[in-house]
């Protein structure tokens, strides 16, 4: 593969985007690529807008993804999808968790939460919406919604399903392996 692939994961601090990026890191390293991941820690993690970049290829220099470069954008929340959609390439794929979390600027009434985000973005990009929270609650565990999103993303990327399963087993806490694998299957079947 000559060209470096660019993945972005965006969401709200506390949603568990770091776990997802580490699984992505695991699968790309496992496939023999040079990989760089870039995360945000500290103050921004407290309920703010968070971004993680994953770049893999033969040799990766820059650790961040810039505007117009993302092959896949995984958004854990609708408004965050809207905020970062312009980072996508024209033929990029947007996987968006169809969930609304009001930022404080909306709660205090300073701004309104935009309506019709998914419809609007679908006109420009290939959009795959997922009701991950709904699916997770069906499994009886709201916390695995991020693994469901990961399943959807996996279906839209070029790695073997077995490889994903292995990485998940090695990355998530041992007690949660079964639940996470179930959640991954659910996501993988949706896409």
């Amino acid at each position, binding site marked *: 593969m000559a060209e470096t692939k660019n993945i972005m994961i965006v969401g709200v601090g506390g949603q568990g985007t770091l776990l997802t990026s580490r699984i992505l890191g695991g699968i790309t390293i496992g496939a023999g690529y040079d990989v760089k991941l870039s995360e945000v820690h500290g103050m*921004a993690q407290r309920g703010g807008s968070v971004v993680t970049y994953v770049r893999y290829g033969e040799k990766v220099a820059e650790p961040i993804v810039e505007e117009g470069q993302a092959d896949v954008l995984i958004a854990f929340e609708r408004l965050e999808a809207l905020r970062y959609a312009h980072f996508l390439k024209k033929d990029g794929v947007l996987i968006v968790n169809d969930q609304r979390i009001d930022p*404080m600027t909306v*709660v205090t009434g300073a701004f309104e939460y935009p309506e019709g985000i998914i419809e609007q973005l679908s006109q420009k990009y290939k959009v795959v919406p997922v009701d991950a929270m709904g699916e997770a609650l069906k499994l009886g565990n709201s916390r695995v919604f991020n693994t469901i999103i990961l399943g959807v993303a996996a279906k839209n990327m070029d790695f073997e399903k077995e490889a994903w399963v292995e990485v998940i087993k090695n990355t998530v806490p041992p007690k949660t392996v079964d639940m996470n694998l179930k959640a991954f299957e659910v996501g993988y079947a949706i896409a």
Partner: protein
Amino acid sequence: MLGNEAIARGAYEAGVKVTSAYPGTPSTEVSENVVKYDGIYAEWAPNEKVATEVAIGASMAGVRSMTMMKMVGLNVASDPLYTVSYIGVNGGMVLVVADDPGIYSSQNEQDTRMIARAAMVPVIEPSDSEEARVFTKRAYELSEEYDTPVILRTTTRLAHSQGVVNLEERVEPDDKVYERNIAKNVMMPGNAIKRHIFVEERLNRMAEDANTLDINRAEYGDTKIGVITSGIPYQYVKEALPDVSVLKLGLVHPLPKKLIAEFAGKVEKLYIVEELEPVIEEQVRAMGIECIGKEIFTVQGEYSANLLRKAILGQQPELEAPAQAPARPPILCPGCPHRSTYSVLKKLKIHAAGDIGCYTLGAVNPLGVVDTTVCMGASISTLHGMEKAKGKEYIKNWVAVIGDSTFLHTGVNSLMNMVYNQATGTVIILDNSTTGMTGHQDHAATGKMLNGEPTYAVNLDDLCHAIGVRHVEVVDAFDVERLEKVIKTEVARDEVSVIIAQSPCALLKSFVPKGKCYALPEKCKKCGQCLVPGCPALTKNEDGTVAIDETMCNGCGLCMSRCKFDAIQLKKRGE
């Protein structure tokens, strides 16, 4: 590995035996990883000055030592830094200092290289995780070879990016023999005058040797453009300008003047690409070499490949405009005890002199009670300064707020000053039993050490009494009625007082929520009182009644205590 994990690995491989640090984004994970290795004693110290002095002691005793901090931590540690530069080392000593271009989690955007130049301490700067590991080991070699502490400078992007890292075995250098040597180790005037001469010579010698040092590397390509760079910006140069000539500096202080002159002579146009201050650029100009730097690049924020494409090549890729999306600033978490304390201060219309931690977020709406934030520990002393400027009546609607970890960092000195100088202010210690902002590190009052072992826990109540505070009240941060009463009483008092508002951080692994709150829409009168403290788990339904997101709620009950209509109930854990 994260850059920070790779530094920890490098320290292990270098045979480091002692590390001491205070947490600070983006440096914290170095300590959290170094402690996992056998053969290294790693600790949390109450502040960076203490940590640096611990590392100095370990070096004097003859072992390799390390201290790690964010750049503002270096300000706290600069007192020992300036003098250990004169003393030098016995066992190698490295200070890992992380800058934060873009100010992701800091109070300013200072450049560590400026302090290092002033302290005459060499600085080396890796560009990725693998170099972070290798350069850490090189730092110890340089430290011992030149008898100097060495600063390993990183930035947020390096510290928190992961890259592929090779592993090597640990070397176990023999401990250096300790010999009493007051001319080197006791910095009184007569000795310091002589050591200052040594320091100047050392820096000149290093600068000369830097011309052939393996971590300074010229990569010749197209010579129309030449770039001098270091650290993470090197990656942006390689991404944006893969074919140009690059002088990549691993040692960024002192600079290799001959190497720079030689490189500059071979390229047509010379650019200096460095984030933050024009430290390299000004020195290159002082050598009489023409170059292009901050007139086209910024001193603010992070760089990127696109920024270089635009500035150097004039390329402007066609990009989609970003959509209009309401901002999502960081906020206090659901179940955060600071929200409860702040809701009481807001009700009483009390201003807070603030400090460094999650609780700085109390400055913004909807809480809006924190008026000032300067640096670690400053809440207490700035309140004191206000009182001395305007009199005790002036601060009757003021308090200082400071976290437990920050209080032990440098707040306790300020409190001592208040007692000593007969102040009358009130200090609220927001005691959530952890260092929250940096990701939950233990400290001297948590009863646990960095390695997880139990230890003595400083009792904050006793500590305040011991330094002469006669009125110390310990209150449950969620007991809003009592908290309100206590704050009113203590603020009115004409003596120094401390209120310790206790409740553990809701993100602590040991935190057990009381249950989950839920709303009864049929009882809701839409008064909005529950929404005032700004808990992110609360939203409004279409009809204006309140809904609580059960996946986010930590069951603190603050919203419930504010509802006069019993429209919010707590479903207790296990019910």
